[in-house]
């Protein structure tokens, strides 16, 4: 029996554009995030790749739980990678602990990155005005607004409020005069206290920065 000779097929690595999306775990601090992302970018540049654009989305709520996390830190890269390097990168990202999920996809050569404001998506829904009154009233009120910008329903309410305010103002003026004298005495006392408080706060902030700024801190 003749031995089978293994013939190694040489495949030329072609540089192609790809898009890389990462979800990092939300427990990372800012210094740790920059450290982790630099590791990945350095790895790409070592292999002969190039990063054309990058976009940091920040912390965002996930649509479902991933490894018991409700939030994730999103990062998107547009890169040009040698095609043989892909398997190495995928393996690295799979084993990495702080990367919750990753995806690499092909993109066409003339691709231009478009930014979408995904954070505002969730806020728009919650901003919808609460429903009041019956369905018939709602329709009528909407019609009035669309035709006349100054709807007649709102105006009379304002007048009533103005009259009430006037009566209140007269009473308040008398009270304010007596208050002003008392306040002047109090203000001088407060100024001395506030200066002391600010000094204390600034000292505390500096101490906290020193403790938290250390990169190699482990809790």
């Amino acid at each position, binding site marked *: 029996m003749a031995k089978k000779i293994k013939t190694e097929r040489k495949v030329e690595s072609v540089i192609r554009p790809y898009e890389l999306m990462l979800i990092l775990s939300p427990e990372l601090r800012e210094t740790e995030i920059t450290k982790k992302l630099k590791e990945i970018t350095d790895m790409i540049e070592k292999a002969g790749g190039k990063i054309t654009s990058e976009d940091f989305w920040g912390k965002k709520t996930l*649509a*479902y739980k991933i490894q018991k996390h409700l939030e*994730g830190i999103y990062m998107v890269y547009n890169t040009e990678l040698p095609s043989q390097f892909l398997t190495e990168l995928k393996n690295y990202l799979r084993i990495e602990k702080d990367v919750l*999920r990753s*995806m690499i*996809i092909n993109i066409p050569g003339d691709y231009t990155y478009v930014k979408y404001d995904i954070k505002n*998506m969730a806020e728009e829904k919650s901003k919808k005005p609460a429903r009041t009154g019956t369905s018939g009233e709602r329709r009528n009120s909407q019609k009035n607004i669309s035709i006349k910008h100054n709807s007649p329903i709102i105006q009379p309410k304002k007048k009533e409020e103005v009259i009430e305010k006037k009566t209140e103002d007269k009473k308040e003026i008398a009270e304010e005069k007596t208050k002003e004298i008392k306040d002047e005495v109090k203000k001088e006392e407060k100024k001395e206290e506030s200066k002391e408080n600010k000094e204390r706060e600034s000292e505390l902030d500096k101490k906290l920065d020193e403790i938290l700024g250390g990169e190699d801190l482990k809790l």
Partner: protein
Amino acid sequence: MAVIFSTKQKHAPGKRRCTFCTNQMGDIDYKDVKTLKFFINGFQKIKPRYYSGVCLRHQKKLSTAIKRAREMALIPFINKYRA
């Protein structure tokens, strides 16, 4: 691109047009969650073509975009409030 999608568009019978073709959108991005949500059911399923009126070429691109967005947790796989 500020393209407004709506599922309430009503065309004359036999004259339904694909919303992507009319707005001249070639590719559909998986990061564009706002447009993808118009083609998703209340049960978070992909709407069939005979409801949304999308042409076949764009429906195939749309389904890949939705599946990619699901994988990256931008869109849920199933409804959260279902038992």
